[in-house]
């Protein structure tokens, strides 16, 4: 019973504590050893009477100025009669009775203690004498409660400091003996005794400590208990037990470490208030907040957008930023998260209110406080910009004279492409910041804003146009700068994004330039089909450049289509161009558009006779150039899917062809038609492949008014 209502009251060296709990045998052994030691050293333990060793140093102290003590402490003097005990005295009999009961219960403790205390008997009795002399005799029971105080204080006063050393003696812990010793004699209860008494008067058993003790039972204890039930026979071998003990020790050690760590952390608990934490959070988050997330955090924005779209397709609502995943998060975090979001909103609105401040001057502060952020980091290096260095060099190095034929080195072209990208990115950014349509009542103000935006946008678009270098006259450089740009895959990729910012006449210029220089495109070279990378380039061209231009041509008037086709035929080797997929795609495009317009289309006037005549002339030129080469348009070893565009082109040719021309066409591609029909009929391939073959052939045959079913397969 070392607990006082569950609080640990164990003092070091105290006989009542569990740590020093010795059984009578051990006690006797200890006594014997102490005596033996005394004999060996020839010392009597009685010499540790501090009365004799005390050297009366305190007497040498100069203690004057006592004349004002009366004023300080009151004239009557404190006296030695501290009557704390008078109240206690009234219930003394009852207390004494209970104490006696308790002592009976704990008799064995008393016996053991007496033997231990007997070592100090002489000294102790002298002690008691000394303080009893100085005190008005309190009742036994009263002293049992207040005695411990009386012991030290009174001794100190009474004997003139004689006992101070005694109480604090570090070697033998005599002081603690002195405090607890009286309980051995049955007149001073310890904390345990008081607790026991109180519990007894309350009519309850000390359950809480007992429970705690049960909880603390280790595995070994449980095991021991089980073993005692089983008649004390050991169940496990010794090695197992040792192992378990080691494990237990490890666990115990880890637990202690954890507790120590927790205690270490816990000492900072409550150091910051919630508003402090919010403040810190704001500082940290404000570094990341931007009012222009598309420019500063582009990839995250795009990723989030794509992801949300994907999630919505799968029927899962919510976005990464807004709601998170309710199932993934513990509910406890909800409030914190909400607070965080509120903070972020506040910071964003703050940032919008005071845009682009790089430093602030606080009144009364010396100097300026820099407002740094991720976007505006503290500048560590001051590198002089090109202005200063160029000024110095300009005198020595005039601009290199431009040579006649400008070489288009790869890094020059790459530089152009990067400039185009820079412009495109800036334009896209401006598009996102386009001022909203005017609200009623604010038209005047809004018009100004929109006007300004339009000017800036137009300026940037013109810059991009210049960087594309489409207007460089043909035949200054070969290949044409614009074609050089298109020969890089990133140059192709940027075109759809460029076209969005171009005016219709600029698109027409672009298309004209492309058509005029078509055969210098790398995708137009037949050897490009040989390798994988080349095929990727063609695929890219077909996916990036053809679709937007197709959209443009499909709305162009007849006159422009005629002009473009004329230029196409004029400036390129048709046999060469037609053998490439992109070339064939453009030819098909012009032919079908012209055919649609010739037949009359809703919004466009039917072309007049002169235009039709021009067209027919062009068509005949094209046909005659391609004649005897139609069969060669099919790629050797091409798969069916790759053939589609050839069939489509043939169909477009067939529609506008005269009877003789149709005859020529059929004769030239007869082989291919038959091959496909035979392949489809002789079920060597899967049904859907067969259907595709027939479909391809029919593209062409339907244009002639025929059908694949009419083809008679010659006997093999």
């Amino acid at each position, binding site marked *: 019973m070392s607990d006082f209502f569950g609080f640990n009251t164990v003092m070091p060296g105290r006989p009542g504590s569990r740590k020093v709990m010795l059984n009578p045998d051990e006690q006797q052994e200890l006594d014997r050893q102490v005596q033996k030691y005394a004999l060996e050293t020839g010392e009597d333990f009685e010499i540790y009477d501090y009365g004799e060793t005390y050297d009366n140093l305190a007497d040498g102290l100069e203690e004057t100025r006592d004349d004002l003590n009366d004023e300080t402490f009151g004239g009557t003097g404190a006296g030695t009669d501290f009557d704390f005990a008078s109240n206690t005295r009234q219930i003394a009999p009852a207390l004494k009775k209970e104490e006696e009961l308790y002592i009976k219960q704990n008799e064995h403790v008393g016996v053991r203690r007496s033997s231990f205390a007997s070592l100090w008997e002489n000294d102790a009795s002298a002690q008691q004498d000394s303080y009893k002399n100085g005190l008005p005799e309190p009742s036994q029971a009263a002293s049992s409660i207040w005695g411990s105080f009386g012991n030290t204080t009174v001794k100190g006063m009474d004997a003139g400091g004689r006992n101070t050393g005694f109480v604090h003696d570090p070697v033998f812990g005599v002081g603690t003996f002195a405090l607890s010793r009286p309980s051995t004699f049955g007149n001073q209860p310890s904390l345990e005794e008081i607790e026991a008494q109180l519990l007894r008067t309350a009519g309850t058993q000390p359950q809480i400590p007992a429970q705690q003790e049960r909880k603390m039972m280790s595995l070994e204890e449980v095991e021991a208990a089980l073993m005692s039930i089983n008649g004390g026979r050991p169940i496990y071998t010794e090695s197992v037990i040792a192992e378990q003990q080691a494990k237990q020790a490890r666990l115990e050690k880890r637990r202690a470490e954890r507790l120590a760590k927790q205690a270490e952390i816990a000492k900072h608990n409550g150091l910051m208030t919630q508003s402090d934490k919010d403040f810190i959070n704001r500082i940290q988050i404000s570094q990341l907040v931007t009012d222009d997330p598309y420019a500063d955090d582009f990839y995250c924005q795009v990723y989030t957008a794509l992801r949300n779209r994907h999630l919505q397709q799968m029927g899962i609502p919510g976005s990464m930023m807004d709601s998170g995943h309710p199932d993934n998060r513990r509910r406890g975090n909800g409030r914190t998260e909400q607070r965080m979001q509120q903070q972020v909103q506040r910071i964003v609105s703050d940032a919008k209110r005071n845009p682009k401040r790089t430093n602030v001057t606080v009144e009364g502060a010396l100097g300026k406080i820099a407002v740094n952020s991720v976007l505006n980091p503290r500048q560590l290096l001051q590198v002089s910009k090109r202005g200063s260095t160029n000024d110095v060099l300009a005198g020595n190095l005039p601009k290199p004279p*431009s040579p006649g034929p400008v070489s288009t080195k790869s890094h020059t072209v790459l*530089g152009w492409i990067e*400039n185009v990208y820079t412009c495109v990115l800036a334009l896209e950014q401006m598009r996102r910041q386009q001022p909203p349509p005017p609200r009623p009542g604010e038209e005047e103000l809004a018009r100004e804003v929109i006007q300004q935006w339009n000017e800036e946008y137009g300026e940037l678009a013109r810059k991009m146009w210049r960087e594309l270098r489409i*207007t*460089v006259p043909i035949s200054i450089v070969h290949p044409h700068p614009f074609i050089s740009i298109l020969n890089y895959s990133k140059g192709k990729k940027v075109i759809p994004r460029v076209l969005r910012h171009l005016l219709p006449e600029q698109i027409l210029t672009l298309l004209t330039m492309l058509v005029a220089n078509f055969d210098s495109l790398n995708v137009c070279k037949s050897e490009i089909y040989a390798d994988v990378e080349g095929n990727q380039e063609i695929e890219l061209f077909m996916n990036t450049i053809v679709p937007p231009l197709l959209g443009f041509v499909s709305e162009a008037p007849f006159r422009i289509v005629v002009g473009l086709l004329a230029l196409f035929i004029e400036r390129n080797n048709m046999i060469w161009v037609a053998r490439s997929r992109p070339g064939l795609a453009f030819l098909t495009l012009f032919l079908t558009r012209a055919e649609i317009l010739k037949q009359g289309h809703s919004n466009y006037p039917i072309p007049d006779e002169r235009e039709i005549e021009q067209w027919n002339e062009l068509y005949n030129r094209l046909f005659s150039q391609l004649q005897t080469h139609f069969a060669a348009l099919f790629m050797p070893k091409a798969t069916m899917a790759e053939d589609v565009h050839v069939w489509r082109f043939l169909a477009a040719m067939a529609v506008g062809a005269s009877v003789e021309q149709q005859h020529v066409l059929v004769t030239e591609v007869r082989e291919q038609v038959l091959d496909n029909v035979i392949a489809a009929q002789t079920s060597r391939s899967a049904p859907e492949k067969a259907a595709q073959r027939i479909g391809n052939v029919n593209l062409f045959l339907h244009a002639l008014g025929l059908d694949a079913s009419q083809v008679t397969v010659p006997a093999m």
Partner: protein
Amino acid sequence: MDDHAPLESTGIEEPLDLVRLSLDERIYVKLRGDRELRGKLHAYDGHLNMVLGDVEETITVVDVNEETLEEVIRIVKRNCEMLFVRGDGVILVSPPSRA
């Protein structure tokens, strides 16, 4: 409308601008620890951290025979679809030789 930027100007001002030219192109990267990379440059930053696609990594290993002290040079290659390169290991970035 018929103006265009001069043909020579490329807007190259600092070394990293040259790296920018290689965006979306195949490049050659020499790394510390006898490693080389060849791949398509998707992205880079001022530390020369890079994201490369379709990478072939070449590691040169020198095995020393403990008895004869003979050095055997071994070349290990591996391919990655996508690779993040930390800039502190980069020694050299260049367009691959077009030979």
